[in-house]
Every structure is written in C-alpha cells, then in structure tokens.
C-alpha cells in the first residue's frame, strides 16, 4: 500500500520568503507528526496531530512555524519569513494511533534557505 508521501522533495528558497511543505499520511492513520533533521542533528519534534484534538505545538521553534491538518488527512507545514537556520530535512510521519511508537515516515523535504 501507499506509504507517507511528502512534497516537494527539495525546496530552495530565498531568506525571507514563505514556504509550504505538504504531507500525505497513510490512509486511516489518525496521528501525524512533523520532525526536522538539521545537519548533524537527530530528529527534532515539531508538531503532533491526533484525530480531532488540538495539535501539540510544543516543538515549534518560533511563531514563524505553523501547521494544519485538513479533514484529518493531509497536513501542511508553513514557515514564514524563512531564515538560513531553517535549512533542514523536514520529515512527516503517521501512525495508526496517537502515541504509537511505530511511526511511518515519509522521505522528507530538504529545505535550503539561501
């Protein structure tokens, strides 16, 4: 079956521009997570959606970052006024239930801010 898909796979943007990253989770998965991996770092949690509950935004690094999940499926991560330190691979994952340790990751979006 189809796994988690993310688009675009690569994004180069100029400092100060806004970007939108998209995630299509596995159908039927109620939980969706965004992580990012900066160079030489581990996966850093950003935001977590579980069903119709309010998202857990505790990992978002600044108010320039926001995310939404429409219809309990597709999610969009938006970064406003991008900075060079936002350059990273942004990974989306989904799981059947919230809190499941078995998460299915997409291939990521590599964001480069010049």
């Amino acid at each position, binding site marked *: 079956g189809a796994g*988690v898909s993310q688009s675009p796979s690569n994004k180069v943007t100029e400092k100060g521009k806004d970007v939108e990253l998209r995630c299509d989770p596995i159908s039927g998965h109620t*939980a969706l*997570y965004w*992580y990012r991996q900066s160079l*030489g*770092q*581990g*996966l*850093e*949690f950003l935001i*977590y959606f*579980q069903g119709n509950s309010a998202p*857990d935004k*505790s*990992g978002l690094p600044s108010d320039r970052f926001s995310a939404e999940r429409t219809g309990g499926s597709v999610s969009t991560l938006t970064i406003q006024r991008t900075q060079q330190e936002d350059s990273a691979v942004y*990974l989306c*994952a989904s*799981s059947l239930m*919230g*809190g*499941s*340790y*078995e*998460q*299915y*990751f*997409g*291939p*990521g979006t590599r964001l480069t801010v010049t």
Partner: protein
Amino acid sequence: DQQVKQNSPSLSVQEGRISILNCDYTNSMFDYFLWYKKYPAEGPTFLISISSIKDKNEDGRFTVFLNKSAKHLSLHIVPSQPGDSAVYFCAARLYGGSQGNLIFGKGTKLSVKP
C-alpha cells in the same frame, strides 16, 4: 539537554561480524525504546522496540538489550551484512506524556564492509 544520546557518530564493521550500537538516556519515565534505521534520501523505518520492563528483545539478526540501572541500551546485529549499512537512530517514548512524539538521538552511521 539531550535526553537520548548516541555518542558514536559512526561505526565500521566487517561483514559477518557483530555490530553493536549504543544509546544512553536520562529520563526514567521512558516506557519504550526504539531503534529506527535510515537509508539516504529515505525516511527512517522502524526496526525493533523494547519495553522498559524487559531487558532483551530479539528479532532475527537484531537484538536490543536494555540496562535500566545504567540507563543504557544497545542494538546488536549478528551477522552484519552490507545491506545493514545505514544510519541507526535510538528513540524513546515518554510514558503518559501528552506528546505523541518520540525523542530521538543524533544517530550512528553504520558501515558494513564486504
């Protein structure tokens, strides 16, 4: 402060030998520990887990050992194969946390040489 630490950024092993990847943690409230494997340009994939009430879990060539008193876990791969070459992330789940996310280490890049 890093709650999950992988102190070895890389490891090189000969094919057929044992690979041992190590991970240390600081939070006693983790209830599950996981290992994820990541190939270049792909998202991490779940490999094996261990509950905090166990000290060993085995799945084929992969065994994870947990030493709670030392707050240490390790992943053993026997025998190692060239296809095992990847980055291995140690991760942990917080018991009862409102967050559904996992806390990841920085990863260890394993190279298995033929």
